[in-house]
């Protein structure tokens, strides 16, 4: 697998670990447990302090007082954070996140995106780590655009009840455009190989 030979690809990333929290004190709580806090609304940061523009584990700020964290599937961090948060604290409340997650990438990814989303995602400045909350194929989604080789990959999360529909719809368009479905390990191994 490489972007050079694949028009577009789609990866199911639902098995990564994730949790959410919201409330006016959520940012302070994250700082207290040494999680990087994206300073701007609708932006993301690597979960581990770094400048990695294509980090997989991340913390995304949705609006001003809600946060969404995605970890490696086998990372204990999610359970540690969930335990620390418990049923909530003063003005910090846990948010169950059972999202369906997928990733779109490859040379033809922009053409796929153009067919399913009315937001001009290719124009997003990656250096600002933007998070976009919008509709894709009629489904409310959270999108993070990240650098990926010479191009971009788009990480997409949605309510799990729409997951079946969104996945099938996106996958059909990817296949129609000459691309294919990949496994997440396949993708990440390829990324490590490129490094």
């Amino acid at each position: 697998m490489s972007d050079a030979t694949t028009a577009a690809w789609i990866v199911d990333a639902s098995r990564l670990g994730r949790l959410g929290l919201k409330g006016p004190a959520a940012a302070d709580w994250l700082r207290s447990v040494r999680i990087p806090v994206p300073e701007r609304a609708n932006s993301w940061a690597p979960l581990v302090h770094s400048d990695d523009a294509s980090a997989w584990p991340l913390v995304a700020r949705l609006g001003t007082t809600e946060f969404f964290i995605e970890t490696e599937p086998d990372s204990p961090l999610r359970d540690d954070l969930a335990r620390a948060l418990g049923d909530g604290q003063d003005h910090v409340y846990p948010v169950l996140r059972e999202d369906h997650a997928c990733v779109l990438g490859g040379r033809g990814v922009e053409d796929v995106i153009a067919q399913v989303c009315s937001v001009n995602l290719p124009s997003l400045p990656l250096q600002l780590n933007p998070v976009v909350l919008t509709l894709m194929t009629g489904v409310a989604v959270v999108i993070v655009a990240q650098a990926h080789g010479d191009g971009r990959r788009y990480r997409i999360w949605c309510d799990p009840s729409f997951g079946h529909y969104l996945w099938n719809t996106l996958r059909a368009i990817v296949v129609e455009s000459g691309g294919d479905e990949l496994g997440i390990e396949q993708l990440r191994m390829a990324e490590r190989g490129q490094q």
Partner: protein
Amino acid sequence: MMYRVQRVAGEWIDRARRIEFTFEGRPLEGFSGDCISSALAAAGVTILGRSFKYHRPRGLFSAANHDVNALFQIDGIPNVRGDAVALGPQFRISAVNTIGGLARDRGRLLDRLSRFLPVGFYYKAFHGKRLFPFWERAIRRLSGLGSVSFAAPRTPTPKRYAFCDVLVIGAGPSGLSAALAAANAGARVLIVDENPRLGGSGAWAGASDLSSVELVHQVERHAGIAALHSTFAAGYYADHFIALIEPGRMTKVRARAVVIATGVIEQPAVFRNNDLPGVMLGSGAQRLLHRYAIASGRRIVVLAANREAYALCADLLDHGLAIRTLVDLRPKDESDRVAFELERRGVQLLHGFAPVEALADRSGCLRALRIAALGPDGQAGSPNMHELSCDALLMSVGFAPACQLLAQAGATIGFSEALQQHVPRKYPDGVFAAGRVRGVYDQDRILDGRNAGDAAARFAGFEAPAALTAPRVAARRPSHPYPIFYHPRHKNFVDLDEDIQAKDLHDATQEGFDSPELLKRYTTVGMGPSQGKHSNVNAARILARLRGIGLADAGMTTTRPMFHPVALKYLAGRSFQAERATPVYERHAALGAVWMPAGNWQRPEYYASAGHARIECIEMEVRAVRTGIGLIDVGTLGKIEVHGPDAGTLLDRAYTGRFSDLRTGMTRYGLMVDEAGTIIDDGVIARISDRRFYFTTTTSGSATVFRELLRWAALWGLDCALINLTGHLAAFNLAGPRCRDALKPLTDVELADDAFPFLAVREGAVAGVRARLMRVGFVGELGYEIHVPAGSALQVWDALIAAGRDFGVRPFGVEAQRVLRLEKGHFIVSQDTDGLTNPFEAHAGWAVKMQKPFFVGQRSLRMLSKRGPRQQLVGFTVPGAGPPLKESHLVIDGADIAGRITSVARSATLGCTIGLAMIRPDLARTGASVSIRADGGTLIDAVLVPTPFYDPEGRRQQPDGAGP
């Protein structure tokens, strides 16, 4: 007759690649690069189809992508635009709107009956009810264009979005120039043109126009310009959002600035038989020649009223075509050197003559033009007529701007008397125009385009030079002020799409339809496939003259998308229908679920069982719940958490009940009304801790309720946070007298009645998964609603099924649940209530705590409680057998409608039909009998009874009373 000539410089056809096709069953041949119309023309086919109303023979008229005469049926696809669609191999092409084929069309008799089909025929024919069915059938059979074939291939038509700094619509000289200017300023430019190649009129209207060729090369090489060919802008929408129709898909473009350089559309003259095959527009003849190397005839006459007609003659002569005569509507200009040159080349010039009529040969095609000297009234005034033998009459008498997009964008369109053309006067921000569409002709178009491109780039935020030289609006008059000529025998067509004659417009105006909008609707002028591109201006000229006003005062009709006809499939795109599924969707499918939509969810209506009918399956599911265990997926319910010190206050204000005093670990029914006191949602509200509530909503109401609660919390400044968990949690209802036995080994929650009483909520593990359990009784049996994270749902579902197997567990669907809750007399919001029902009318007054300081709808309910109900929800039974009753069957009182059934079912448990009905309050007396009108009008007697129908004391929801 048209024919293919020797190679023409720049022709689009590839003579090395032949393409075979059939037309009306006749095998023919064209070249790769031909459009359908050109291939037919080259093959000598003169009659392409029949007209819409009178079935008159019609031929190529404009070759300009919107020619109603060139619509075809191809392999089951109707109304393919022959001028715009490339010829494909093995196309099976037939004419549209014929009865028995093009050559033997039986509909042609209508042409002889035209005097019985006056303007406004529809309105007059439909005036009486008695003949309506007759006329409806007759018109449906006789009119219309192509026919829809359900066997036509289904082709995907994706939609896409695109973005650019400057969108240029039209790739003629001015559009190309605008694109280059904007791109040179650094803007990302998208240029679109409806033709397969860039160049527009520069590619054919002036063969010597080398600057256009060079412009095309520059645009094609420019890295900042993307070009879309064979693409038209179908409509302009707010904020520079433009729908582009490409071959096979629609692209919605958002641009920062837009340059509209759509040029002009040549207009016909109106005279008797101006629709004969062989009569066409001069620009059409040039398109055919330069694109497809087709001569428009062997004996050509040109009808002229502008300079373009002379250029046309010169162009055709240069390519070896024979032009006999040029008939100019204008007087002779002795200084005209071009005219002198034409005469020198052998063309007879006749000035000051008007067409009287075109004459047809036996096949219905043009054989001659009859003309006469113009009189002082602008009509053929001399009795001495000349007959000019010809097989092609090319008209070049004027133009109309293609300003539809400008008008849609909000530009003010005025009328220039000097040009005899509509022109834009005022533009909305970010919208610019260039070239002939705004009255700038000839070489000035290129300068005009450059200025527009620079201005658009500046508007989009780029640095571009300001216009130094203003291009001249044409100093000449390209359009004749009244190229309309009357004849006592009529058939002088203004609108070829709809067969509208000049006399039709006269009659309509006389009948009082004397404004453009009224005239359009009464006569249907401009309402055909070309949307008035060849008829609106002439219709307006006629109207203005009849009213004795100028064209500027007559006004024009409103232009709306789409610019060309667009197949519905392009609008539908991929038909994204976002559907939700619960995490155990696949388990339902494996169990034979028959699906039904519930909001945007798919839910099992029931589970099919081999050898059993639907109703039997539902009864088996009901029986399982009443006697053993049933399991239903209720994950579609809205599921919301509210945290914070003001969580109870929010619920107190949003719902009619009181929740701030709800004990932790308990649930309470919640009813929501709107400001008018109308029931809008309900659910169960559980208190998890002092500052944390969890509650359910109806399946279809979750998003609305969540949004409203967010709004209210913000509006009231409450210190609480709302979390929508609808999709993130799965929920199952395990119900039936044996459900506790099945659940007990799976959970660490103490299920004993004293530890977990009716209406309590508990948290613990079920099948090893952290769960929230609510002991509720919607179906009227001992039951537990189990809520677990969606990712663990399969594990829990499988464990419940396995644990329940020894007790005869059976999954049940929505229909069984409806029967079960109906037996308990529970109403369903928006099925048993409607957009006017308040809680008092639905016997839910007990859920309204009027003594609270405030809740949404309280003021209205206070008034409604004093006024009394306007309708009342009641239970009824129908003893014995009879015709089946259905929801919405009417309750009849004497001759009046007194209500309707909202829910009804045959209850196997109770052995009778039960239901709920919303009826007039004066009839709502227990024990009274009411009449219900079933299908076919049969009246059924029903008895009003109190609810619940089943287990009115609620004993079965208590363990002691739950024995089988």
